[in-house]
């Protein structure tokens, strides 16, 4: 009865009704994961489970049993930032920063989805892998709200990392 969080195994919470977001924040003091709405509408609580993005406010901690959870704190190692984290700094991909951990976690998984050829609602030709365009990124990141309106920087940062990855 354990979850692996950022590489460390931790026991599940006693209360099976506890959301993963609450467990991370209150149980483990991993406060990088933010709660913006607690009802699946804003994306601030996005984390990765086995590399896929999930809204941790809508996920029970027990659902992650035996799986690997990665939070924003687990994306970097020490001062070594993840390329997306670097790119968010370089492109000013935030203002207040409250949506940022969720944006970066979501972008990590989203780039994988794109690389795997998963289509989105703006993908024109479903017979081929979705192209790497700003339009695709805009659409795929629209579940992560940013009230400060840092969308330009967010898209630019993700596009840069995607292109470097593709190159």
């Amino acid at each position, binding site marked *: 009865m354990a979850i692996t969080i950022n590489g460390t195994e931790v026991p599940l919470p006693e209360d099976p009704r506890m959301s993963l977001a609450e467990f991370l924040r209150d149980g483990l003091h991993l406060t990088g994961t933010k709660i913006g709405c607690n009802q699946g509408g804003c994306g601030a609580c996005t984390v990765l489970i086995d590399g896929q993005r999930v809204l941790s406010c809508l996920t029970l901690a027990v659902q992650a049993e035996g799986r690997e959870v990665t939070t924003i704190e687990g994306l970097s190692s020490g001062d070594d930032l993840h390329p997306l984290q670097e790119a968010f700094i370089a492109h000013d991909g935030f*203002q207040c920063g409250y949506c940022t951990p969720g944006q970066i976690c979501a972008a990590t998984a989203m780039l994988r989805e794109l690389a795997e050829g998963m289509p989105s609602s703006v993908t024109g030709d479903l017979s081929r892998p979705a192209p790497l365009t700003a339009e695709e990124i805009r659409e795929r990141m629209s579940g992560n709200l940013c009230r400060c309106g840092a969308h330009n920087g967010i898209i630019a940062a993700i596009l840069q990392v995607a292109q470097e990855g593709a190159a």
Partner: protein
Amino acid sequence: MSMGKPLPHDAAPLHVSGAARYVDDIPLPANALHLAFGLSTIAHGEITAMDLSAVRAAPGVIGVWSADDLRARFGAVPDCSPSAHDEPLLADGVVKYLGHPAFLVAATSHLAARKAARLGRIDYRELPALLTVDDALAADSRFEDGPVIWQKGDASTAIAAAPHQVQGSFEVGGQEHFYLEGQVAACLPQDGGELVIHSSTQHPTEIQHKVAHAAHLPMSAVRVEVRRMGGGFGGKESQGNHLAIACALVSLETGRPAKMRYDRDDDMMITGKRHDLRILYRAGFDAEGRIAGVEFTHLMRCGWAQDLSLPVADRAMLHSDNCYFLPAIRIESHRLRTHTQSATAYRGFGGPQGMVGIERVIDHVAHAVGRDPVAVRQVNFYAPMGEGPAEAGGASPPRSTNWPPEDIFRQKKAGEIQTTPYHMPVEDFVGDAMVADLLASSDYHARRAAISDWNRNSPILKRGIALSPVKFGISFTLTHLNQAGALVHVYQDGSIQLNHGGTEMGQGLFQKVAQVVAGVFGVDAAVIRITATDTGKVPNTSATAASSGSDLNGMAARAAALTIRDRMADCLALQHQTTANTVRFEDGHVHVGAEVLGFAEAAARVYAARVSLSSTGFYATPKIIWDRKRGTGRPFLYFAYGAAVTEVVIDRLTGENRILRTDILHDTGSSLNPALDIGQVEGAYVQGAGWLTMEELVWDAKGALRTHAPSTYKIPACSDRPPVFNVRLWNRPNREDTVGRSKAVGEPPFMLGISTFLALSDAVAACGDGSVYPALDAPATPERVLAAVKRVARDV
């Protein structure tokens, strides 16, 4: 020199790694209590009975308080209002809106408190609820005795005498702040009855003041700390008072730390939003569209308490001219009291509401005379700024108020000084030059022609394009708020700590001020350690609002840094037998005579010579003077300008719409940090466009807000960002002596979003034969666009 550099946000590495701490992330002692309010379920009624026994018996509950309990314990129900003393912490005998906090619960966990708060039973004797501006007008329910009226010249005569007239009215919706971090506060009781408060607030001094008042403590016994907010937008200017006061009272009652955060739904149900209003207008003009006179009536829905509604409504009046010289004008402003959330500050503070009024008038006039709205804007612009610097000091007297002017329709001349409706001379008008530049860079005229061709061949989809300019007044209209303090320490190892009264909500204020201080000492901005805003370090601060953050705090910090630098220069000059004015601070070094010292070495020497390396700094904005009752004076130190061109497309069968392209040119004076400024401009435009297009607040017939979560209240998402989005800064020095000759940037670009609304109206017009001016209300949701299309198409 670090001023003017596009450095990233000072906390950037913390933000991207999840290490930036917000109030809810601060570890609290294990015995901390968590609070929640029980809310009213009707909009207006007398509380006849309250049964809170089930709340008290709920698991984890430590205490429950009603207004009567607070009165018994503290002698009164503490007031949370910013000025009018009309907002008791808990509904006192009467509930005045649906969502009104009626009792307070403290429990051992956030969830336990929220669950328990649902168990309260309140009996009411229902009273009639006034929900709309029509309800309030009919009942004469308002703040102040009657409408506020300001006028210049004789508008009604001017309108009647003009060759052409238009009139109309439209609705403008409110707006939820939707700061991604909701309202939150925590209180830590200290030795000797002192309190430390952490609050997500734009106004730490107000929190300190209100908490001290509620707790019967002197302000000196309450310390408020704010490191950062996850967005504010005006929603944390006064709306955080309730949470901080509740935490303080519970801490006093129980001796335990207390924290309160609103869940998103509660936040939206409880807190105030942007004022919605109805605007009625009448204008008279000549064949070219040159306006001779205009009349506005603002019917503002202020909600149940006064909060900041009076200055908000004033600022709407103050922006009813925008960039246009209006020879005769009359503005009548009704501040209506309703049984809804108490409307509050929101980015622009009424300015956007006033500005959208005149922009619609100009569009309507353009429609009436059959000209491109841009041409009508241009003929009505204020006279462009002349050459030469601003006069130093002293309020400029109001100039010509003669009526009628010799020739209303005469051509204006460059350098000529025209006055606003409130008799302030406009000395820095650059709107015409900026618009000319933007028209060229956005290829406006060619695109406008191309769009009308395209529309002729497109029966279902219709495009629209519009330009709107912005002139926004910078300064608090309550003159005494235009002051700021700062505290700078240089340590003997050469490191520098900076503190000022401004708060950080993502706008990059801390970094900008640090760049100013770094510039004074000739060191790298990274050397400056920026600390949390703290009422114990800098007292008596104003809210970080009115876009004034860097103007005020930058100047105060600069003054503090200059004091220290002068002392260092004096001391080192004496040691080197030279004069202080030859000592230079550059590139991390201090040059004294022939010697070059590292900054740390210089600091160590000055310390050893027993000279103080710490100083406060203070700034009070010069020149401003304002008579609010009569509506005359110089309320603003200067204006910030901007212009945007937006192109949209609509589907005439469904009303669905989207932005295709946006071009912006915005005036930040000599930008203190172009990267941060561009971010502010982009974000503000998106928020402004959201206000007028998709963000819709819906109350039902009982006064319940039905859009109280992101599932029902839509803010612009990444996919709504214009696919083509060109933003440039008009990087020319401010005419006034501001910090680094920069201009404030927080609010002005919000109003660039008005161009989106006008572009939608243009697209709607293309659905008809052009004979009907499209009556479009805001927000222009698909439903409203569709309704407007039906109205114009009827006449085809």
